[in-house]
């Protein structure tokens, strides 16, 4: 690889110099050049480098896929030939009338365009990787059973031919756990997030705002694994102790602790999005309310918040989406036992916990438990995608309406 690029660089430089020289010669003859001499150089160099890179990438891709490819030196020679041919053809085309600048412009455009396709490919990649495995799973387990079953008890299977008759894949308890923990998180995050955003945008003096805002963002920057440790080692025992004060029995892997910590984690998302939304409400509305003799809180409650409602709603949906997909906190602090209950002090497990559990064990890759992880991933993807799209569209609309 190093040889490849190390070799390409001087070659490209040579091509650049040659292209430029030819253009300069033409210029000296008195022909009017369409573009700058250097641009002809770049033109030749690009045409030389492109085939070489293309051959290299194809070879590397093929090697990764396990296809037989010629040994590295041959690939190198191949690339060299490609480079020479490309470079020579480009050099022949260099003449005063050649629109080298436009060609470069076009090349840049298509390079940038290709880069922007990567994000689309990523989404496609996620969908494909999940859907195929999930389909395999649904070949073995009925969709109906998966969606409505209340018993999740996969039997570990270490060889593909093992009996799997006793495995149960009813996902209801997993979703119940996920929603319970997310609900607790949102109960913490929405009021605290929105109210602190209101304080920062409507009440706080400039100085307080400049200090409080970055401090809140620190909460967003803390890695989730750290929150997970905090939930497991500090908050869970605290919940157990407090529950005991009230004579209640709480499990050490209760749903409340990860829920609370997840809520803290989501506060900054909600508050910074709400802050943006509240700030985009035009000041004329506030002045209108003040001029009628409203107090500040009346203005906020009756005018600003209702106007900002769609945006705050969208922010909350993004928060929910984040809570549903959060993994580390629940892996470290929530239980492993699928448990269908309304009591947040009991241990519960979630979809993400089961995905991690299904894919980090020693099971064969095609075992139903592994495939079940992908099925759960599919549901998670669909649900979060819906939430994200709704909130993205609402936010776009909202921005447009106040622009």
């Amino acid at each position, binding site marked *: 690889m190093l040889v490849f690029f190390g070799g390409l660089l001087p070659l490209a430089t040579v091509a650049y110099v040659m292209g430029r020289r030819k253009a300069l010669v033409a210029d000296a003859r008195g022909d009017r050049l369409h573009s700058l001499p250097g641009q002809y150089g770049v033109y030749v160099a690009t045409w030389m480098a492109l085939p070489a890179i293309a051959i290299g990438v194809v070879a590397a891709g093929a090697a990764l896929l396990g296809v037989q490819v010629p040994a590295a030196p041959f690939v190198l020679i191949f690339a060299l030939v490609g480079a020479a041919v490309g470079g020579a053809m480009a050099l022949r085309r260099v003449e005063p009338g050649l629109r080298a600048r436009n060609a470069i412009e076009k090349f840049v455009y298509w390079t940038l365009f290709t880069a922007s396709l990567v994000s689309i490919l990523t989404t496609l990649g996620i969908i494909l990787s999940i859907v195929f495995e999930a389909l395999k799973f649904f070949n073995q387990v009925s969709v109906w059973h998966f969606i409505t079953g209340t018993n999740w008890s996969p039997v570990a299977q270490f060889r593909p031919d093992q009996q799997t008759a006793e495995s149960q894949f009813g996902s209801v308890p997993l979703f119940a756990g996920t929603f319970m923990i997310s609900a607790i998180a949102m109960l913490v995050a929405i009021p605290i997030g929105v109210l602190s955003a209101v304080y920062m945008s409507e009440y706080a003096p*400039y100085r307080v705002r400049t200090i409080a805002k970055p401090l809140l963002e620190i909460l967003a920057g803390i890695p989730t694994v750290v929150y997970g440790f905090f939930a497991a080692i500090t908050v869970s025992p605290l919940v157990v102790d407090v529950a005991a004060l009230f004579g209640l029995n709480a499990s050490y892997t209760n749903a409340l602790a990860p829920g609370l910590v997840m809520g803290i984690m989501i506060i900054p998302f909600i508050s910074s999005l709400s802050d943006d939304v509240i700030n985009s409400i*035009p000041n*004329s*509305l*506030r*002045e*209108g*309310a*003040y*001029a*009628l*003799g*409203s*107090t500040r809180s*009346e203005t906020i409650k*009756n*005018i600003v918040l*209702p*106007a900002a409602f769609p945006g705050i709603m969208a922010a909350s949906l993004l928060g929910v989406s984040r809570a549903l997909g959060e993994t580390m906190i629940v892996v470290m602090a929530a239980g492993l036992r699928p448990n269908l209950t309304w009591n947040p002090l009991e241990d519960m497990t979630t979809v993400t916990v089961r995905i991690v559990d299904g894919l980090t064990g020693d099971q064969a890759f095609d075992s139903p438990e592994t495939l079940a992880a992908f099925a759960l991933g599919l549901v998670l993807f669909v649900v979060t995608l819906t939430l994200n799209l709704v909130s993205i569209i609402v936010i776009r609309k909202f921005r447009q309406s106040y622009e």
Partner: protein
Amino acid sequence: MRTRDLTGDTAEVVRTPTTERSPVRQATKMQVNDLAVWYGETQALHGVSMDVLENEVTALIGPSGCGKSTFLRCLNRMNDLIQDVRIEGEVTFDGDNIYAPHVDVVELRAHIGMVFQKPNPFPKSIYENIAYAPKILGQVRKRTDMDELVEHSLKRAGLWDEVKDRLQAPGLTLSGGQQQRLCIARAIAVNPSVLLMDEPCSALDPVATATVEQLIDELKDNYTIVIVTHNLQQAARVAGYTAFFHLGEIVEFSDTDSLFTHPREKKTEDYITGRYG
């Protein structure tokens, strides 16, 4: 009454309008004494004094940045909302200094209504736009009283016939002129005694402007109106008295007719004849 020399530091200032119009002295509703305003380091008003007469329309004219809007916003203390603002001097309302410590600014604003440059109806229904303030001020509690008040206010603002069938429609669905009249209806619903208008027609088309001007003319029987306007013809049409502001001072203040026909000051003449501004 001598006017203040623009360059000099004459102590005497324009205060009551120099008038040839009416021999009857009208009651003074608001009195401004030596009002000075700073935004941070820059001074926007340099000791302005002026009387606002009851049940009259007083227009404030002058080039952009002359301080007329700042002046207007001092009359109901809207400037308090701006950070880094410093206000000195005295503004009285029925004889009470509104900048005195015992005065409550929320209470004050309920008595001095304001209409803004751009119509700013709340993102609520037409009905709610008007009912909002009387409700929070605790003026009206019964639903039937409120219905009556909404109807009355809309009628006063000349909007009733156009919206009576769609009171629950969002206020933002109205046209610009209708929105501005809705804002006027909203302001008079709480029964203020003074109405401040900050270029209320600048965002409206000529037809809507004419409607609003006619409305202002009708309202002056019951309200004291102070209007800031860029439009000299508008001042001439609606106002009984006009003050010409320049660089944070009042250059001339008199009844509208004489200000436009026989300006005393060179600056005023230059401005109204369109030589600058």
